[in-house]
């Protein structure tokens, strides 16, 4: 296991070392000590490695991730896993705003709560939040799935496109053009698989969730919808 102590090394040195790894590297397990809430830790990775951050991370931890598994053992700041393409990002604590923003792929798991705008403009990522999510989550969400075991705040899924939202608890309100939708077999199968991937098999049943998605009424400009624009 490779250990980088951020009390002795800089963030630049850490990221540069991680960027230098080849796809067939044998140095597949990294541990980052004393992260101290620094921003942009383990960003732009592109190798099948595991990076454990032993504490809290600041903004944009694991941003634009490809292939790698990044585990934040504390809380994560704004935009954790933003624009990730593949791989897995796992926050053991809570996540701040815009978790998984615009991410195209991979899996983001948050053990605690996520704040406002979780999954904003998500483009294919799957996000599983074991706690609750704040207001405006899945705003303009384009693709992928957001699973929330707790509650969702105001205006869930506002202006949503084709992303699928599964919420077990209460939804304070739905945003423009977001509606509750029928949970069909394909959705139950997808949800079951996501809960499996997040290691939640047995902790909750798919029957406890309700599904939300786009009513698709705002996809094209229409005079009668002017008030919603």
């Amino acid at each position, binding site marked *: 296991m490779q250990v980088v102590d951020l009390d002795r090394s800089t*963030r*630049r040195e850490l*990221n*540069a070392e991680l*960027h230098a790894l080849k796809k067939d590297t044998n140095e597949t397990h990294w541990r980052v000590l004393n992260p101290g809430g620094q*921003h*942009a830790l383990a*960003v*732009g990775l*592109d190798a099948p490695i595991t990076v454990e951050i032993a504490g809290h991370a*600041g*903004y*944009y931890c694991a*941003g*634009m991730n*490809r292939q790698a598994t990044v585990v934040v053992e504390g809380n994560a700041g*704004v*935009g954790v896993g*933003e*624009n990730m*393409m593949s791989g897995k990002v796992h926050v053991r604590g809570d996540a701040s*705003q*815009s978790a998984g*923003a*615009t991410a*195209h792929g991979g899996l983001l798991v948050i053990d605690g709560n996520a704040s406002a*705008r979780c999954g*904003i*403009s998500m*483009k*294919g990522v799957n996000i599983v939040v074991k706690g609750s999510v704040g207001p405006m989550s899945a*705003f*303009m969400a*384009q*693709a992928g799935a957001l699973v929330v075991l707790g509650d969702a705040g105001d205006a869930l899924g506002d*202006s949503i*496109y*084709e992303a699928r939202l599964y919420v077990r608890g209460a939804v304070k309100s739905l945003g423009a053009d977001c509606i509750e939708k029928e949970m069909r077999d394909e959705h139950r199968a997808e949800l079951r698989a996501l809960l499996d991937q997040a290691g939640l098999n047995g902790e909750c049943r798919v029957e406890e969730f309700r599904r939300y998605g786009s009513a698709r009424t705002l*996809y*094209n*400009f229409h*005079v009668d919808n*002017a008030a919603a*624009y």
Partner: protein
Amino acid sequence: MDLTNIPRTMPRHSATFDPHTLSEIRRAAATGIYDIRGAGAKRALPHFDDLLFLGASISRYPLEGYREKCATDVWLGTRFAKKPIHLKIPVTIAGMSFGSLSAQAKEALGRGASIAGTSTTTGDGGMTAEERGHSQTLVYQYLPSRYGMNPADLLKADAIEVVIGQGAKPGGGGMLLGQKISDRVAAMRTLPKGIDQRSACRHPDWTGPDDLEIKIQELREITDYEKPIYVKVGATRPYYDVALAVKSGADVVVLDGMQGGTAATQDVFIEHVGIPILAAIRPAVQALQDLDMHRKVQLIVSGGIRSGADVAKALALGADAVAIGTAALVALGDNDPALEEEYQKLGTTAGAYDDWQDGRDPAGITTQDPVLAARLDPIAASRRLANYLSVLTLEAQTIARACGKSHLHNLEPEDLVALTIEAAAMARVPLAGTSWIPGADRF
């Protein structure tokens, strides 16, 4: 008195309710929705035409037009980037998306810019392989929508432009109507085909200058500090926006005036939000000077650049380079009078065609229709663009030599006077024939 032959006052249109205004009221009354169009502000605005150069005279001597060197190159991104950009000419191609433009038009922009030794820029919708392949120097825009944004393309770019706003619509997001959301455009943007796409107007994961600083740090970390990072703003509060961009760690600031074009925006937004580029340059340069960052953080200005005179005037006011969008499209073949018959069928006329949102461009530029797009020969169009860029440069050099400058960057406000009080106040140069700079004593 002969009551049959009284002279009549001729019919008079109202200056306030002019025929264009009346037609817009009728259109609004019939449809119930605002007008969406392309291009930039069309109203008359204080512009570079209101400035003149003072050529060399007894106190200053000129350079020989065809013999003495007048350099035109520019470095961009020298503040922090390990790999700054070096361009042969200070005229770049502004960001325009694949989606708003056809693949042929994007290819022509890349080829033409590469021939001329300058950069081109992606747009809201990601980077196409063709565009990367044909552009020697390519700036990758980082927009609120993040359509098509991915680290692989980020690493292929020569610079990154964080777009906060554009001159045609400061405070507004992108728009691409369903007619132009073809299969390929939809796939690149992860959107259903044929929808009216409305991009976000704010970035999804940062708010304000303190966050922007952290976002720029992240982009530098991801790209190992190699690439210049530009910050683009629409001209509104240029002094503060430029100061905040510098504070946030930008290498280059791009400032776009309200004459800058758009692919699709509400007409009311284009014509009534933002300020002309003439009014924006001096406050922007002032901010750089106050921070001791002029020429260290480079300033690119855009919005209504048409000629080498405009280029020279923008540089004299303190810009390091300019960007062109609308003029580049015209050089490719947009609004060509040879297509007048087809413009007439669309209810318009060559020179006024601005329904770029409709995707029915007879010139094959602002369209995703494969038949129309095939009309544009990217090779021939790129040659026209390269010729035009060459003329802009030669014209700017002509003026600079007349002012005795061995580099375009040696042009300065002292070389200029203004024809109108407005232009004198905005450009902070004297009204011609006077020493009066309106407002100078209170700035």
